[in-house]
């Protein structure tokens, strides 16, 4: 029994585990209500993809792809391409995580919360109205302008 499981795992099981990890992370990203948790799930998902690629590089009895002067045959070295590709993917995921964290910090500052429910419900919107941002500021300016014109003409500008 253990033998069978071992052979399965060695031959193809790791793929299955990687896919389960991947879809678990996607499930977490969709259902978690906290943006920070969503971001962590995103990282898990990226790691799953990296592991998936590294599975292809494996060769039984292979050594790391640095010429050591002993191993002669090409089949003695691991496949270097997935490693090179995944180095790129790791850097990309690092960059994505950095940007996501910066956005989360800004979100905490602007809305006081990173919970999706708070952001969508009135609680965050209430906070939103308190301070002015770029788009809101334009509207606020417009309001001020309206008041000014109202003062000048002596009637409500919205009446038109």
């Amino acid at each position, binding site marked *: 029994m253990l033998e069978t499981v071992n052979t399965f795992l*060695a*031959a*193809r099981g*790791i*793929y*299955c585990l990687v*896919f*389960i990890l*991947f*879809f678990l992370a*996607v*499930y977490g990203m*969709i*259902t978690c209500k906290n943006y920070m948790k969503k971001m962590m799930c995103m990282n898990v998902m990226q790691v799953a993809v990296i592991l998936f690629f590294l*599975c*292809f*590089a*494996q*060769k*039984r*009895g*292979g050594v*790391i*792809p*640095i*010429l050591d002067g002993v191993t002669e045959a*090409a*089949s003695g*070295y691991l*496949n*270097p*391409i*997935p*490693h*090179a*590709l995944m*180095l*790129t993917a790791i*850097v*990309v995921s*690092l*960059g*994505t995580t*950095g*940007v996501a*964290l*910066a*956005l989360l*910090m*800004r979100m*905490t*500052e602007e809305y*006081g919360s990173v919970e999706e429910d708070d952001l969508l419900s009135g609680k965050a919107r209430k906070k939103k109205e308190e*301070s002015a*941002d*770029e788009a809101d500021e334009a509207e606020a300016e417009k309001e001020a302008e309206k008041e000014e014109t109202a003062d000048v003409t002596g009637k409500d500008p919205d009446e038109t």
Partner: protein
Amino acid sequence: MKYKILTLVVLIILCGAFCAGTAYLPEIGDPQSVPNNHISDYYIEHSEEDTASPNIVSGTLADYRGYDTMYETSVMFVSGLVVTLLLAVNQKKDQQKKRKYDVTEKVMGAELLRPVETSKLKGIMNHPFGGIIIDVSARLIVPFSMMYAMYVLAAGEASPGGGFQAGAVLALGMVLGRLMKGEKASFKIPGAVAVLLAGIGAFFYVFTGWLSLFNGGMFLEYGAMPFPISYHHLHEAGIFMIEAGVTLCVMMTIVGIMEALLKREDFEEKD
């Protein structure tokens, strides 16, 4: 709840389909599998003569697929830039925060915030932390880590290592010093300037490509660079040049991100 179950069902179906598909994927560890044979043998067999790099991953990353790595470096730079743009310099926020920071000073042209009294802030990262033990041990670690980074950079072409690792280890020294000494760290770079330098590091990579282009080669063809040395050495020089650019870019991006986070780290505490 309904939508959670729906998501779960859809994802289980997808996951099942992918897991069933593994039956058609090559067996893990099989040296005769398709991905291990089509072009991978070419890289292993020709890496040394083509790229002068016994480290095949480095040779692949920096030479055969060097064009990808150029954009990878740019991705690093752009993430540092976005973080800095979002966090470090935001004049609107500066105005709102006048209660806490009322002095803005110009450091190399960038408007940076200086807290009135550092000690009154709740955040920990702006103060020096730790006592004499951490201080002394950091003093020991920093120079050696920096030297090690240089070694990793120089040896990256022949053994495990390379620009990304070297940049990260170099940045470690700076981050450590900054955390130990807080605002009083003797060697610190303003976030905006750090991102600027990261851009220059990434440009150094592109510049290597331009060198070969102007000398009549294809883009990033190290063999065509205008230096009077052999093909073998040209490739070594090319890989070293791009690794140096990558090192500068990665180090400065990390420093830039750290500086950007330090400028903002105290708002989490407030109400």
